[in-house]
């Protein structure tokens, strides 16, 4: 190994390449392999400068402007949903060679424009992307207002994660959604509260994904739409629950069977270990609950980790996300 390093050193010095340059190349290769979207963002700046005089580069510029930040934002969201595959967004340019095929395919074509501010392009492409990427199999089974609210909320979440110019992007998006009905906005507010408390991706999106998976291919019934709407309100109640609130901790309907186990008091764990939590889970299971979420706030989070570890050590549970 030392011989190889020595050989490389001699080769580099023999060709007049400085160690700093090698270090930079290695760093770039590392970024390219692990976070290619960062490359795309950096190249976006270069394409943008070049695309002003050279019109033929405008497509490269727009593609980088849209794909780079969106991929980065989606990777952040995927961290909260590690068990669900979130696809990346890719711009497919329709040109003279594939125009006929694209028209026959019947898939929507979005119009993008080369501008100094890529906000509108990002908002438009993300909106179309969300339609196919998130909860595609679930959407037929939830009501129209909830569906719209979900799309708006997911799009907003992606746009919020776009670091560059995020306030501008978001205000463009909000301005353009201002005419939505009260029912849609009421659900958007419920989702926002859920998201502020960290349960949007971790519980709501995950359970709706499973809901769609269970129902996929089956008849669309009003009762499913009602059930999913009630579930939204249940998760909202959980997320905004105060310390001693007497809100239900389980939701057991025809399809969605979800339970929440609160880990709040340190003395409960210190005095009784995992027994009280196990008892609550067993009680929930007897009522048909299929997935349980352990929830804690503030200082109780460290107890939650310990409870989760001990529950997993029993060998009867599997963790799907944190």
């Amino acid at each position: 190994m030392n011989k190889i390093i020595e050989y490389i050193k001699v080769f580099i010095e023999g060709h007049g390449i400085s160690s700093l340059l090698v270090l930079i190349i290695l760093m770039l290769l590392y970024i390219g392999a692990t976070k290619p979207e960062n490359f795309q963002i950096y190249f976006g700046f270069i394409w943008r400068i070049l695309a002003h005089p050279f019109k033929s580069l405008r497509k490269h510029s727009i593609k980088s402007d849209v794909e780079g930040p969106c991929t980065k934002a989606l990777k952040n969201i995927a961290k909260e949903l590690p068990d669900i595959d979130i696809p990346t967004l890719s711009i497919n340019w329709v040109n003279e060679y594939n125009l006929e095929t694209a028209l026959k395919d019947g898939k929507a074509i979005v119009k993008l424009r080369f501008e100094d501010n890529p906000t509108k392009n990002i908002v438009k492409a993300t909106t179309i992307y969300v339609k196919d990427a998130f909860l595609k199999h679930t959407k037929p089974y939830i009501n129209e207002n909830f569906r719209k609210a979900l799309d708006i909320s997911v799009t907003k979440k992606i746009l919020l994660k776009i670091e560059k110019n995020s306030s501008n992007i978001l205000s463009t998006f909000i301005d353009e959604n201002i005419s939505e009905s009260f029912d849609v906005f009421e659900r958007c507010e419920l989702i926002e509260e859920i998201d502020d408390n960290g349960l949007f991706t971790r519980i709501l999106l995950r359970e709706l994904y499973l809901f769609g998976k269970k129902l996929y291919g089956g008849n669309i019934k009003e009762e499913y739409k009602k059930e999913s709407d009630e579930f939204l309100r249940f998760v909202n109640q959980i997320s905004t629950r105060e310390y001693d609130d007497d809100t239900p901790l389980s939701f057991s309907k025809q399809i969605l069977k979800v339970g929440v186990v609160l880990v709040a008091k340190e003395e409960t764990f210190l005095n009784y270990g995992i027994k009280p939590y196990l008892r609550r889970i067993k009680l929930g299971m007897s009522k048909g609950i299929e997935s349980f979420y352990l929830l804690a706030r503030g200082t109780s989070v460290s107890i939650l980790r310990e409870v989760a570890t001990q529950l997993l050590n029993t060998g009867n549970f599997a963790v799907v996300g944190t």
Partner: protein
Amino acid sequence: MFTKKNKIEVNAILDTQIEEVLKKTSQYEDFIEGKLTCSSCGSIMNNQNIGIMLPVESGTKIKFYCDRMDCVEQYKLDHE
């Protein structure tokens, strides 16, 4: 690190290509004369406000949605 991720392809055109596409579907004259409207809000389509173009009738015609977000949302609901 190197696993291939699923991707959703979003078909896109540049605003400068609209003429080419509309000539292909023989809708360019209608576009110039202001006869093409948004399928959601009914506003007249022009180079600035086209949001989504949806090929219909086996790609021989195009249906339009303007770039207002609620019209884009309407497109999504119409084609869920």
